[in-house]
């Protein structure tokens, strides 16, 4: 079975997986998009660089990271280390117990991935060469966490057509509380 087929199997057999990327230290090995993709392809290399940076960063504290799981508002993310490679999974928003279950599901596929990685030729481009974009994103400022004021209309002079339905205000949630 190919690496692409293995990633597809992970996405179909393990509940909650939206997209999967396998990255070797030498470069991106494979990524699964198609019906499962929520991942802009341009961002794959940046995510890979960030994943390796994070694994290096926690080395001293953890004695080497096996996995790193993130819980965001709308998605979760799992980075699973496989020797010299990482498996990046973009997930539905999962809570702690669901994440534990998912890790068990993913573990089943680790051995076949290891075998496939051993047999494949080294990637042509190193992860660090792929894109030179900076790793550092903006920090979330405290004001990001506060409800935002609705934007003022551009002009009070603008006529409002009677037949136009007012646009539904998008619901915004922070930790389950609407604001």
């Amino acid at each position: 079975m190919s690496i692409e087929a293995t990633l597809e199997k992970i996405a179909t057999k393990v509940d909650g997986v939206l997209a999967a990327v396998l990255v070797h230290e030498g470069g991106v090995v494979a990524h699964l998009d198609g019906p499962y993709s929520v991942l802009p392809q341009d961002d794959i290399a940046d995510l890979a660089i960030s994943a390796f940076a994070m694994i290096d960063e926690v080395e001293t504290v953890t004695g080497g990271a096996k996995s790193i799981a993130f819980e965001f508002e709308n998605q979760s993310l799992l980075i699973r280390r496989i020797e010299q490679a990482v498996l990046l999974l973009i997930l539905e928003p999962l809570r702690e117990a669901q994440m534990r279950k998912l890790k068990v599901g993913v573990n089943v596929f680790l051995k076949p991935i290891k075998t496939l990685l051993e047999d494949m030729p080294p990637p042509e481009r190193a992860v660090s060469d792929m894109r030179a974009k900076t790793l550092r994103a903006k920090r979330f400022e405290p004001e990001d966490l506060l409800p935002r004021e609705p934007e003022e209309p551009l002009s009070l002079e603008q006529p409002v057509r009677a037949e136009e339905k007012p646009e539904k205000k998008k619901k915004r949630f922070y930790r389950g509380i609407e604001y």
Partner: protein
Amino acid sequence: MDNIQGDVVAMLTEAERKGLAEIAADPRVESYALFTRYGEELGGNAAESDLVPVCSNLIDIAASFADHLGEEMQCREMAIEGEERDVTILGLKAMNVVVVREKGARARGRLSHVD
């Protein structure tokens, strides 16, 4: 909790305070630290360790992931399963908490989703 100043404790919600007390009392917790979103240490029992600068960098990288995934909010929780220790970083309302546990120890204090 004795090593956290009163003005810092006052910034926590009641549920966060309760959860933090559980973490502080957990014998399988090796160290814990509170720090601002900008990486300044606010208290805990990890003074002078390299835990806080490391976690500050992790928060930056997590923000980079959030950017790529189109998330508007910072990471709620980051759980690292290590070879020797497990680390959890929780995003609270006003600050971050990092907890270092013995490997395999389950989190007792749940701070992030109680409010």
